[in-house]
């Protein structure tokens, strides 16, 4: 039999995972989409024909509680009441939940159990060091609870991140965790067309019939073409978001992707009318709230060199600016590349992008490399976050160990169980609340509770209406007169 022609795929259908409620606003709106903004479109998302609705990343839990003052468990339940037929996805990063440190096994287990109980239908776990020991137990537990599982492989370019490396990890995920899907998670938007042509066949050969999902970001404008090529080579599911909350730093637009894949001869059975309605809703929300829409980005070759996520670049610039050292930005980027090499090629995603970026700033600013060492960098080289992918440069290892905090033990100790203590400490609380208390220090949970239940109604107003309401809300102006084309309103406060 002749080799299959990638331009004439035998398989004719491709499925879509929607990221509008998760990555689109994480990438474009700093994760600030409220539950009230989501609820009006949930019923439409339910019937569009998605394989899955991506919903809760790790940062979403954090932003819900700290900034939006929303109980994320309640958010999950409210959305699940409306998206009943499509599994909602929640993410697990390593075994550290919302932070960087390894957390007790029983806390991880309770978290997964509560995700399932509150309506999460698929759990996707990844470990940026691809140390699968960190994620296999959680994936196995999710499976036992009847939740679908997805094993994420975070992509980057480096001498250790070869096709063979990813293929072996994919195979191990299928063998050890029995995952339903394998995802290539290109958080940094680094996957190019040449690489996808070798990577997808390598993973396919390793995982047999297990579906492969492709997730990327349009940071250099290439992701739509990478998806297009990936689907030709056998990718089963693609992650897209609904324009105008697509492109830019977010995922490729569902609308364009459907058109492109249909032109290629694929079935993409999605309700395009409902998709347009969802897009229109978020366009109006963006307009009212002053939030940006996704704009396609131009090709940027430099992105592949520094591999830094967009948020990190802005942060580094700011740090240097405050020290009056903005002219040394290029030096810091070059230092990032050098540190990555010395620290055995960590992928530039949380928490490793912060580790590399911060160490680079210290190295440049202090004039002596590894003189100041963040605690997390020392923990990383000592294996606190999992086994580094290769040997750390021995000289650098010495400097990090001797200049880093003496309070960090040379060998990481597995944290002991914590759930029983939590139950004793908060006897009247639900397990959901106990997990909140465990994850958020100080009075953050109380402040969230004080803000009351989640708002479930999102109203659109005319600009004039909003101006008037905002002026009244400010209470500091006792006389307001507003005139505009036949409207003349005067408000006067009583004495």
């Amino acid at each position, binding site marked *: 039999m002749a080799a299959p022609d990638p331009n004439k795929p035998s398989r004719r259908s491709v499925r879509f995972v929607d990221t509008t409620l998760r990555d689109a606003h994480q990438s474009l709106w700093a994760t600030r989409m409220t539950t009230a903004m989501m609820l009006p479109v949930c019923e439409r998302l339910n019937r569009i024909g998605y394989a899955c609705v991506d919903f809760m990343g790790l940062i979403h839990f954090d932003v819900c509680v700290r900034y939006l003052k929303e109980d994320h468990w309640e958010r999950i339940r409210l959305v699940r009441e409306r998206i009943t037929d499509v599994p909602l996805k929640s993410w697990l990063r390593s075994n550290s939940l919302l932070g*960087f440190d390894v957390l007790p096994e029983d806390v991880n287990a309770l978290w997964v159990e509560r995700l399932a109980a509150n309506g999460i239908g698929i759990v996707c776990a990844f470990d940026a060091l691809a140390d699968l020991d960190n994620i296999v137990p959680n994936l196995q537990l999710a499976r036992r609870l009847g939740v679908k599982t997805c094993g994420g492989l975070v992509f980057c370019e480096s001498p250790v991140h070869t096709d063979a490396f990813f293929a072996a990890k994919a195979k191990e995920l299928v063998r050890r965790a029995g995952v339903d899907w394998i995802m290539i998670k290109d958080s940094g938007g680094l996957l190019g067309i040449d690489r996808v042509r070798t990577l997808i066949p390598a993973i396919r050969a390793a995982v047999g019939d297990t579906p492969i999902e492709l997730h990327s970001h349009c940071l250099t404008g290439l992701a739509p073409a990478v998806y297009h090529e990936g689907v030709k080579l056998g990718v089963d599911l693609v992650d897209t978001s609904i324009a105008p909350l697509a492109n830019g730093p977010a995922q490729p637009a569902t609308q364009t992707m459907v058109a492109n894949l249909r032109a290629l001869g694929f079935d993409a059975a999605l309700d395009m009318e409902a998709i347009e309605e969802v897009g229109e809703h978020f366009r109006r929300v963006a*307009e*009212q709230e*002053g939030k940006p829409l996704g704009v396609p980005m131009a090709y940027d070759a430099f992105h592949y060199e520094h591999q830094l996520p967009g948020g990190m670049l802005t*942060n580094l610039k700011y*740090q240097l*600016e*405050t*020290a*009056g050292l*903005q002219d040394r930005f290029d030096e810091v980027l070059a230092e990032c590349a050098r540190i990555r090499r010395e620290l055995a090629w960590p992928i530039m995603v949380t*928490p490793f992008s*912060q*580790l590399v*970026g*911060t160490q680079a*700033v*210290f190295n440049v*600013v*202090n004039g002596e490399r590894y003189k*100041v*060492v*963040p*605690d*997390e*960098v020392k923990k990383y080289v000592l294996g606190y976050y999992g086994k580094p992918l290769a040997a750390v440069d021995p000289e650098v290892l010495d400097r990090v160990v001797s200049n*880093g*905090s*003496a*309070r960090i033990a040379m060998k990481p100790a597995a944290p002991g169980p914590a759930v029983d203590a939590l139950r004793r400490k908060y006897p009247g609380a639900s397990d959901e609340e106990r997990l909140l208390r465990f994850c958020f*220090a*100080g009075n953050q949970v109380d402040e969230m509770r004080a803000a009351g239940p989640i708002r479930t109604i999102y109203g659109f107003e005319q*600009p*004039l209406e*909003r*101006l008037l309401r*905002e*002026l009244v809300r*400010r209470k*500091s*102006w*006792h*006389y*307001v*007169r*507003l*005139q*505009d*084309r036949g409207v003349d309103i005067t408000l*006067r*406060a009583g*004495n």
Partner: protein
Amino acid sequence: MELTHDDVRQILKIIDDAAHLEELELVHGDFRLHVRRHGAVERAMASAAPVPGPAQAAARAAQAKTAAAPVPGGMVAIRAPMLGTFYRAPSPGEKPFVEVGQKVKAGETVCLIEVMKLFNSINAGVDGTIAQILADNAALVEYNQVLILIEPEQK
């Protein structure tokens, strides 16, 4: 010309920047907004709201330089390695690493600086006695700001 949500945001920004003004009147085409802080007072026409300076970066850089205040003779200064948050204890509720008058060894942690969500343990650098703690717990500190003064041990 129709008022847009973008216009509303800009108008509200002008209004909020005018906290020191008594009265403000804004006219653009058919649109006219007139606000007064008090109901019936003399008219004092508002001047334009202040425009935020474009040279914020330069101002911050200058600020960073002034952070490098003189250090009293004989003292060793512990400085912030980067803009960040200063913490005196390993975690909330725990005892501070050091207090004034306490003797420390060079390799001992005296405080933490949180930079970009990472915690940096700052060592004393010299054997000596804590003479002064100059930053408040959980305060934002500038690059190079003096945080702690240590009186080194006489050799």
